[in-house]
């Protein structure tokens, strides 16, 4: 018989090893899956993890893409992780991301064609406020009426998608777009464009914001009393109240912060890589960021690395579809495996295996 025995305290070794182990296990099982699909497994793994960075032909295009994809994932995941640490489950970052993109873009389009340095910062602020406001809905409902933030924030994603469809063919439609849905393109409006900070690297302002968010979250969680109270709320809610933490305020802070960061990510995306508001503007970053947050163990530095890894599997996955003809669903399965194995191996951080006869009492 095999038993799980709780460790007296979490193992430091396992905390560090589990993400690596999860990646290795994903490669092995993913390889088996690719082989079963009749594709060369080693080549597929290499195409996903190696070629995007070092392929002589494609790397020049795909390397900058790494930061372009990782930026919003990290920015959103940092916000989510702070809430998750407090036991507040914002599942609706996708909706806050969309609303941030809409409000930010709306401000930018309102100034069009004004050419002033002030336009872009105003758009960023408006994007953050849009995401924040969308996050406040589940926050206030939870504090005032005790609703479940998981359900409310998730449902609001679909409301946000309806807004997106509405404004892209209505309020924000490009008046010069010959009737096609979609807003003006920010890449043709310099004052409102999210440009690369260092040309050719993919590092736009959103990536800079993501790095700043990582540092901010690290300092908050490890050095500041507010971060300590957030962790305490997640670990032991009663002890947090005893320490003097107001649980309602933590809910409002966490949902507001994660909403604002997701909203900013949406604005950076719409004014940069995406360029314009369209019906299918959102691409699931808000949901993938949940995986990134957990893959990074809800730790800011871990999330930075996890965001880069996740972006790599995105780009590599696209490459593998293109070059090896792997079905898109198998790439999603591959990414799902990563989270699955992480959560599975995570058990060993707090438990160890014991073989032999166990106690019943």
């Amino acid at each position, binding site marked *: 018989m095999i038993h799980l*025995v709780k460790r*007296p*305290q*979490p193992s430091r070794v396992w905390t560090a090893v589990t993400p690596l182990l999860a990646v290795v296990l994903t490669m092995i099982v993913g390889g088996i899956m690719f082989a079963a699909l009749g594709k060369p497994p080693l080549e597929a793994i290499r195409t996903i993890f190696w070629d995007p960075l070092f392929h002589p032909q494609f790397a020049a295009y795909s390397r900058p893409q790494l930061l372009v994809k990782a930026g919003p994932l990290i920015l959103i995941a940092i916000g989510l992780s702070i809430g998750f640490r407090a036991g507040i489950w914002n599942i609706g970052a996708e909706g806050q991301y969309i609303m941030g993109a809409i409000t930010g873009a709306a401000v930018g389009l309102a100034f069009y064609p004004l050419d002033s340095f002030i336009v872009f910062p105003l758009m960023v602020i408006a994007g953050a406020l849009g995401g924040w406001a969308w996050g406040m809905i589940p926050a206030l409902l939870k504090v005032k009426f005790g609703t479940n933030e998981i359900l409310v924030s998730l449902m609001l994603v679909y409301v946000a998608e309806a807004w997106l469809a509405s404004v892209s063919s209505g309020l924000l439609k490009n008046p010069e777009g010959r009737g096609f849905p979609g807003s003006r393109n920010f890449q043709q409006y310099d004052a409102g464009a999210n440009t690369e900070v260092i040309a050719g690297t993919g590092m736009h302002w959103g990536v800079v914001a993501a790095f700043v968010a990582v540092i901010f979250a690290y300092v908050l969680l490890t*050095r*500041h*009393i*507010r971060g*300590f109270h957030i*962790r*305490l709320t997640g*670990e*032991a809610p*009663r*002890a*947090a*109240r*005893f*320490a*003097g933490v*107001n649980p309602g305020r933590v809910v409002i802070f966490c949902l507001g912060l994660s909403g604002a960061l997701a909203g900013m990510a949406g604005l950076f995306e719409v004014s940069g890589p995406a360029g314009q508001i369209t019906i299918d503007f959102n691409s699931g970053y808000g949901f993938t960021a949940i995986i990134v947050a957990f893959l990074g163990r809800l730790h800011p530095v871990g999330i930075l690395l996890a965001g880069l890894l996740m972006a790599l599997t995105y780009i590599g996955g696209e490459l593998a579809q293109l070059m090896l003809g792997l079905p898109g669903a198998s790439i999603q399965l591959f990414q799902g495996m990563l989270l699955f194995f992480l959560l599975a191996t995570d058990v060993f951080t707090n438990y160890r295996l*014991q073989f032999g006869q166990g*106690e019943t*009492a």
Partner: protein
Amino acid sequence: MRETLLEIKGLTKAYPGVIANSDVSFSIGRGEVHALLGENGAGKSTLVKMIYGLVKPDSGSMRLNGSAFAPQDPHAARASGVAMVFQHFSLFEALSVAENVALGMENPPKPRDLARQIREVSETYGLPLDPDRTVGGLSAGERQRVEIIRCLLQEPKLLIMDEPTSVLTPQEVEILFQTLRKLSAEGTAILYISHKLEEIRSLCETATILRLGKVVETCDPRDTTARQLAELMVGASFDAVTREARAPGAVRLAVHNLSARSPNAFGTALKDVSFEVRAGEVLGIGGVAGNGQDELLAALSGEIVTRPEMVEFDGTPVGGQGPEARRTAGLLSAPEERLGHAAAPDMSLTENAILTAAAREGLMKNGFLDWSGARGFTEKVIKAFDVRTPGPGTAARALSGGNLQKFVIGREVMQRPEVLVVNQPTWGVDAAAAAAIRQALLHLAGEGAAVVVISQDLDELMEVADRFAALNEGRLSDIRPVQGLTVEQIGLMMGGAHDMEVAHVEA
């Protein structure tokens, strides 16, 4: 000598890393009231679990009535005539007494017959109980009767009772003892587990004392002093708590007509509680568990916010303030539940020190935490209160209950509070550590702080308190000086026998 009922020979049980029982041997005679005495972790629970069939021994044997006895499970133990009343009741509040009793029986009779049997047994043994009443409306003492009657209906030869008096008032204890004496006179042996020495001396005729899993002594408790028993339990002599003479000073904490609803659905509301505590004084608040102790602590710590004037600290109304503001001013508290309330289980001791000491010990500047300062403060607490742990980085849940309790109390005491409120300060702590904690509380009062000790341990309250009051259904009794207070008076303050009639026992 009585005829032997249960003979235990060389019972040994080891868990990974700890030997719970090592070569334990003793015997219980027919109709004997036998005490099993020991500190927390001495192996009492493991031993009775082996007798009741919940745990299988690694080695050793038992004989019941002369034949080999090795119960596979509690069913087998019950079938052989062993019954047990647990410390924590397993009753369904929404069901009636009879229904609860039926649920615990192997072959329950028809409801009408069962009700008749319950009435018979309850009258015979002086445990009046109406089988049709709903358990939810019963007092703790009456609930215990349900458990006892459930056992008695099986006509046991051996009745095991695990800490039965921790939920009873002195009057209820006396009723229970009369029942137990009658059972004993009829030939039922009783294995009585407790750490309350005076109780054992008045009830039991033999005591087996366990220390670190081994039998250290079997004696007649009636011929042994409580102090000798305590030293046998602890294995060393320890300093008795001493009081420093002091004159009470100004009123530091005043509570005026405090009424508050419990945040917990099953909690007890506080009703019109008033008291004052002066500098240098210890106020002891007793009462049976669940009569508003948790709520009173929460209202004083700031977890329950009330009208400002209901709680006054040094003349300032603080009832409307949260925990942080009260703590900064010097009104500190330590709740009963260590893990999850007083401390976060998965956080390190240093982080748990930050939990209450951040503001008062200057461990943060502009909200930024001073981790090295926090570690220093944690080490001070560990050293001053003899907390056994590898170091300040250890997770709170890795500490034993007693050690964590020392840390939790130490964390507050080391912050030099002006007023300290503690709930069950020595619950689950060994005798030597309990004495050290009580001494620290008295020392604090000696230096001019006002101390409120909420406890269910009357001996503890008599030892540390200057004045005593009891909580009963959320109301506070009159406050009386401890000096000259009799057990009878204390019992009446705690609510007496909760309207249970004292039965006529013809033993």
